[in-house]
């Protein structure tokens, strides 16, 4: 973003960067930056809170009145990345005990995902598999977690992208089922801590790591701080 700010200014456009990592803005010195100490991935602050978002934008656009730069300001309100309210999102009861628990769960949540998609009109599922392929992708990660070599487990496409699709499927339906906008990282915490699929994904990631799979293949299947 800071690179583009310099490129755009040189082309005669005025820019304002919403900074997420202050150290980068300090070093790259874009002409105008407003740093928000917010969770990464939420540069405008609070989802579902138009008033709060307008406060961020008002302070950012006010920087355009400065006669020169670079200027780096801090938004006075910070949002902690951890310690927020956990997501209250109930999970389905076991339905088909012949299936692995994570696969049974992913299948049972399909109707919730459909409601989410109908409500928002958008989905990020679809890099390695479409929504119909989610249970099979989960099944492949369960096999990896149980010891099948990842190359033989039927993971669709690049493991990172298959993991992305499974994670996105759960995140989107969770937002539909939960009451109100999720707190910082709350959807991720729910996915990795509470769901069978999230636990299977982390177990598959550990199994790939322990089997000396190439680092980028397993590492980017989950956030770096997850074990």
């Amino acid at each position, binding site marked *: 973003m800071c690179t583009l700010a310099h490129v755009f200014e040189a082309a005669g456009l*005025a820019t304002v960067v919403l900074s997420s990592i202050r150290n980068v803005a300090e070093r790259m010195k874009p*002409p105008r930056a407003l740093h928000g100490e917010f969770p990464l991935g*939420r*540069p405008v602050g609070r989802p579902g809170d138009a008033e709060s978002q307008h406060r961020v934008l008002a302070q950012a656009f006010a920087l355009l009145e400065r006669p020169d730069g670079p200027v780096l300001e801090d938004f006075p309100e910070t949002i902690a990345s951890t310690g927020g309210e956990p997501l209250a999102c109930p999970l389905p009861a076991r339905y088909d005990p012949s299936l692995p628990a994570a696969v049974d769960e992913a299948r049972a949540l399909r109707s919730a995902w459909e409601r989410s998609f109908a409500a928002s009109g958008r989905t990020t599922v679809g890099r390695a598999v479409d929504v119909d392929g989610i249970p099979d992708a989960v099944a492949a990660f369960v096999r990896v977690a149980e010891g099948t070599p990842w190359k033989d487990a039927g993971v669709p496409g690049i493991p990172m992208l298959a993991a992305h699709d499974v994670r*996105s499927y759960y995140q989107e339906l969770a937002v539909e089922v939960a009451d109100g906008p999720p707190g910082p990282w709350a959807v991720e915490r729910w996915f990795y801590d509470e769901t069978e699929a999230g636990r299977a994904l982390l177990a598959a990631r550990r199994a790939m790591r322990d089997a000396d799979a190439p680092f980028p293949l397993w590492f980017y299947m989950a956030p770096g701080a997850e074990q």
Partner: protein
Amino acid sequence: MPVPDNDRLMRDNVAKMPVPEFEKPAFTKPPPLAECRVAIVTSAALHVATEDGFEPGLDPKFTVLDDGERALRLGHVSPNFDRGGFAADLNVVYPVDRLHELAARGVIGSVAPHHYAFAGNQDEQVSTVRLDTGPACAKRMRDEGVDVVLLTPV
């Protein structure tokens, strides 16, 4: 076990990475905000579902987002940022509805007909973005009468 603080890990890691240097940076003074046409450029790699997404590695291209389009995919596949916020409200990454509210109030002059998305993960020198795709994106915006660009990262 303590709750993982992935944001702290990422901020600490990025602080150790080199960044490109810009000698003699430009500074463009905009017209008064109430007269400005504003566009958003985000590094969230947003794109419509019918269009190829960004490569998961380093992809210096940009996508063109119609101002009225909301069925956007978060094409930046990194797990290392909160994604639930975007799932709930795309404005927390791409505040296009907020821009329209500001235009309706007369705070900004108008909203650009298109916005643009790049991928946040780039090589350290960002050469293609600096020399090719970034200037090409700037030219499109200039041709569309844009005065001010709001840059939003993920």
